[in-house]
């Protein structure tokens, strides 16, 4: 099977353009994670919390979910390699607050059933998007989860139907027929 890069190269040549292909940067230092492990930035408890929230926010459906796409590992790399100390500290404090709120809503968020956990997170999410300014850190976390998911190959290609080279511009596509 051709790799994507070989495929692109063939396409570029067939279009008659540059034979140039950009250098690929080193793949992100993203470590595959499971809820039971600590990350480079996250503690074991934090990783468990991130994993559960990610799974509830973007579950597996007909397409891969956040855990399939290793979103927790992506967030761990984001916090380790991108975030400043100030951002790291703010994020860590936000996780503590989120954890406390979810525990008080569900008893014990990590041990709660799928249904109970989803109900707790739904309530917290609703508060966060209805004016509870203390939950800004949750909105940031949700942004990281969502953006990371859609930046993964699964999220971009399977969920968003992202294509590397559209090849044309169509300004008017009917959603009913255009998918």
């Amino acid at each position: 099977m051709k790799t994507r890069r070989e495929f692109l190269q063939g396409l570029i040549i067939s279009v008659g353009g540059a034979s140039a292909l950009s250098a690929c940067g080193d793949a992100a230092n993203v470590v595959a994670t499971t809820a039971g492990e600590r990350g480079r930035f996250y503690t074991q408890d934090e990783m468990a919390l991130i994993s559960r929230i990610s799974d509830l926010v973007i579950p597996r459906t007909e397409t891969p979910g956040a855990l399939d796409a290793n979103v927790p590992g992506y967030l761990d790399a984001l916090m380790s390699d991108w975030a400043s100390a100030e951002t790291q500290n703010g994020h860590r404090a936000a996780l503590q607050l989120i954890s406390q709120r979810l525990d008080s809503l569900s008893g014990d968020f990590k041990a709660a059933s799928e249904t109970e956990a989803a109900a707790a997170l739904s309530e917290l999410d609703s508060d966060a998007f209805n004016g509870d300014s203390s939950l800004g850190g949750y909105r940031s976390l949700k942004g990281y989860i969502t953006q990371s998911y859609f930046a993964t190959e699964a999220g971009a290609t399977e969920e968003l139907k992202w294509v590397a080279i559209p090849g044309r511009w169509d300004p008017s596509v009917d959603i009913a027929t255009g998918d």
Partner: protein
Amino acid sequence: MAEAEFDAIVVGSGMSGGMSAKELCERGLKVLVLERGPEIVPERDYTDQLAPWESDHLDNVAQDEINQHYYKQYGGVAYAIKESTKHFWVKDDEHPYEEAEGTSYDWLRGYHTAGRSIMWSRQTYRLGPQDFTANLEEGVGVDWPVRYEDIVPWYEKVETFVGVSGSEEGLDQLPDSVFQPAFELTDAEKSFKQKVETTFNGRNVIPARIAHLTDATEEQRALGRSNCQARNRCHHGCSFKAYFSSLNATLPAAERTGNLTMVHNAIVQGLDYDPANNRISGVRVVDAETNEARTYSSRVVFLNASAIASAMILLQSKSESFPTGLANRSDQVGRNLMDHVSSAGVAGIMTGFEDKTVFGRRPSGGIYIPRYANVTENDKPYKRGFGFQGGARPLGNSGGQIAGIGRDFKEAHKRPGPWRFSVLAFGEQLPNPENRVTLHASRRDRWGNPVPVFNVSYGENERIMQQEAVKDAQAMMEAAGCINITTSNANLSKPGNRIHEMGTARMGRDPATSVLNGWAQAHDVPNLFITDGAFMTSSACQNPSLTYMAFSARAANYAADLISEDVI
């Protein structure tokens, strides 16, 4: 006088330098291009082929790295500085500058082959006849020594080579270019166009004109260029060479003549002046990596280093004949520094298009509203005018900032969401000799060159114009039926932030009040031409790169004539 090593030296390889070099080389002249930065090799340095998942941390530059290296650049163009594009932008700590007390300035740039022509946003418009006469009619600044008709053949020549997509509109104030097919407007944009043009007689909403190939010519294909693939990865470079940059087009065209010599990492420190012959006799450079100094010689010198850097080179070139800087008898070098001015962007939601989306990622562009102020509408409390850039697109939800979790939340991202229409005015800034760049008295960069000091402020005309522009935008949005109309903030853009700096060695008819004549040739020194933004006598409101290239081509052919006649 000793035999010169080259016929011409071009300082700078960006938008205008590439065109100067191409035209000079094609006239059979031996040309040396001096580029202060390192070489960009597309196969190695373009990053347009990276998929979203092939970039680290969402392609964001690490926060500590921004604070250390990109505090000015990132503050100015965060949208363009990504982990995979940061190598196209200067590190501010290596290239410092100062701002006069109470002022601020964004000097946003990259030092490498092709300069900012790699990172530009590719909007491409001619100036109109009114732009060359406004100074004279209003008694502002000095009169352009050129009229629109003088530059028309050079616009045509450059456009044919560059490739400009756009639509023929027949507007006097924004003349048509030689076009390749435009990127068609979206349905929401067509609706906006229809309603605005009906409501406001004399206003037009047209497809943005951008330097992208949509029907590549044989000449363009021969340079390895092909049509735009609608990827919108342009800030990463383009392996299809579909958008114009000097690295994608003019430099290869110069190269294939066999007359081009290109030297990288060559920082010009000054121009040597020979008073006996009244000519520049040498271009002094220092190697950016080795600090090795050497001098090159040529019959003619083109400064294309950017409006600011070219002015600094002149100011650094002091001699007994020119104690305040070469070709500066008028004392205008470094003065009249202009940019375009914006204030609030205005946005609103257009309903009625929820069943529509788009295919492909349109690069840059969208709509353009050509200047109408003081063209078709003459009731304005300000001089000159502005054009609007903007467009409509489905808002999408990929930032995660909507309520909900689970399947519904996930699937909401598949839907394009409501259509958001936004516009931003780019306004003309009047020339003001007090807006200037000077050399710092003592502070030097790591190569021993003085750092620039900016002292630039907007005036009342810019402030009033932009207040009115925001009101106009709101009125047009309302007429088009937009809802939830919002403005970002009312502050004027920081001087320099539109990245259209110009005016620091203006053209004029009188050597006592201008630096260059109508050929962009220095009044004081006949073998010196300056065809970057420095020559601009007024700023107009159109994005200026096309005009820089047209004047570069014209000046290069004039210089070649003078050389062949042995005048210089």
